[in-house]
């Protein structure tokens, strides 16, 4: 998951679709994000590379739409509805996730276990 600035990033991603839940006036997704290019990357407990300023999932509300959709704590969000999330400020990320006129957000997330799973499957015979 480490990246070299200026070079294209290639990671294994999982596509997750979360339906927003209507709670009164708000549409909630059920997780918390941390990170962004205006934040201090050294304090991110989930990133491998401590200079990684991407958006990470820091908390999942149990029973919320995000957990049902398969989002895990520690996931790095690469895209939201086609918008890039690797080089955004924290506030921009929040805005992209909480647009009022969208009911569904389609995320591309990556995590370490995905890489390992792909390596395993490529190394040994195909998993069922």
């Amino acid at each position, binding site marked *: 998951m480490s990246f070299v600035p200026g070079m294209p990033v290639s990671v294994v991603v999982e596509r997750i679709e979360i339906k927003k839940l209507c709670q009164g006036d708000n549409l909630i997704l059920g997780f*918390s*994000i*941390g990170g962004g290019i205006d*934040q201090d990357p050294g304090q991110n407990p989930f990133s491998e590379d401590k200079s990684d300023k991407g958006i990470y999932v*820091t908390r999942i509300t149990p029973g919320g739409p995000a957990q049902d959709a398969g989002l895990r704590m520690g996931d790095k969000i690469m895209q939201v509805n086609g918008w890039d999330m690797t080089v955004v400020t924290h506030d921009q990320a929040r805005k992209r996730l909480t647009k009022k006129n969208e009911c569904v957000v389609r995320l591309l997330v990556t995590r370490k276990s995905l890489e390992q799973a792909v390596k395993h499957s490529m190394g040994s015979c195909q998993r069922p």
Partner: protein
Amino acid sequence: MDNESTYSGYSYKSSHSRSSRKHRERRDRHRSKSRDITLRGDKSVSIQAPGEPLMDAESTRGDDRDDNWGETTTVVTGTSVDSISNDDLTRISKDLEDSSPLECRRYLSPALGAVLGLFALVTPLAFLALPQLLWRDTLEPCGTPCEGLYISLAFKLLILLISTWALFLRPPRATLPRFFIFRCLLLALVFLFVASYWLFYGVRVLDSRETDYRGIVGYAASLVDALLFIQYLALVLLEVRHLRPAFCLKVVRTTDGASHFYNVGYLSIQRAAVWVLDQYYSDFPVYNPALLNLPKSILSKKMSAFKIYNLGEENSTNNSTGQSRSMVAAAARRRDNSHNEYYYEEAEVERRVRKRKARLVVAVEEAFTHIKRHQDEDATVSSPKHPREVMDPREAAQAIFAPMARAMQKYLRATRQQSYHSMESIINHLQFCISHNMTPKAFLERYLSPGPTLQYLDTSRGRQWTLVSEEPVTASLRQGQVFSLRRLDFSLVVTVTTLPFLHLGEEFIDPKSHKFVMKLQSETSV
């Protein structure tokens, strides 16, 4: 001229008034204020009379209370305050010899300056007066323009006189070993100037009996202008040039390592030496020889443990070096515990001093509670049966000195300051403090910390210092020079370094550009 420096009085800085000095020197270069200045006498100050106390403030000798002196020395030098030891005698005689040749040399330069100044002052007036006296009838009458020139001449002369008095008629505070180059230059310039004016005047005016009086007056006015400009030059060379700091001088006293750093401008070595000495008297703590030595009991144990035996060697030429080298090697190999003793001795001394200081402070505080300033309205309040006796400060001081005398004496002995403070001086100081309403702490500040040398100095005598330098003392200061100022038993070593050149850059900060972000990982729930 030799390199012996005789320092008895010199002043070139314009910022201090020297009128309080007892010896006044005449240093006018161009002008003297009026005729009667030269009639005032000068008081000579630098003779060290034999009746002076032997322990003068700067060079105390022979009174360290070293308890082991009986065992480790074979010649007893100074044992009590009242006896004169051999070195004191030689010192006194040397001082007596040194001070007498001062008298003539000191007055030579100011006298020369005064004569030249007087000459220069009289010249314009002579230029004006001579034609009037000699060929008055043939002179062309000259009305208003001449009067205008007379007025301007008068005012310029007045300004010259006032500024000469302000700048140059100050008592000098030092005599320098070699000629003061700028001053000589200016004297020569004035002499050349006035001489050439006289030459021109003599040839063109006196010989040919010039009748154009206005021209003569204009000529005299131009001389006064030129003298004003020379005075401006003198002001710049002597007073202003050395004000901007260019060098940093490190001054270290050789006996106890007390050091200070000073910033000075462009000066010659001798002028810088005088400046350093001025600062020395008020910045450096007084030199107390009794505080210097490690007790002999600690140092003497080092080398005494080994004896060297010479086994069967015929030639003894390299005996001594071999012996000392082997002793040094043996002493180095031996486990050395003298630092331990030094440490404990130091701690002991410090503890003793602190205890005595505590006793002293308490005694003084208590003594001060015994007296109170007498207010006049209290007179009616005090009962007639116990009339309070009204004392003047001297009696009050003597009255309260008794309870604190012993504590004071013990404290001074512990800090080895007893030679600087006699009972008389303590009572005087007490009287001074009482009359100025000082608290006990203010009274004690004089004794608790060793003050600057100036505090203990008897200012009526001159001070003899020797400037020791490898380069000629009229050379300007340069990076890396070292010279020293020697007195009888210690010297000050001065090292010169240039102040660094400063590259000052500029950075403009927009006041609106001060923005901050929190350095936390903020978490937003979506």
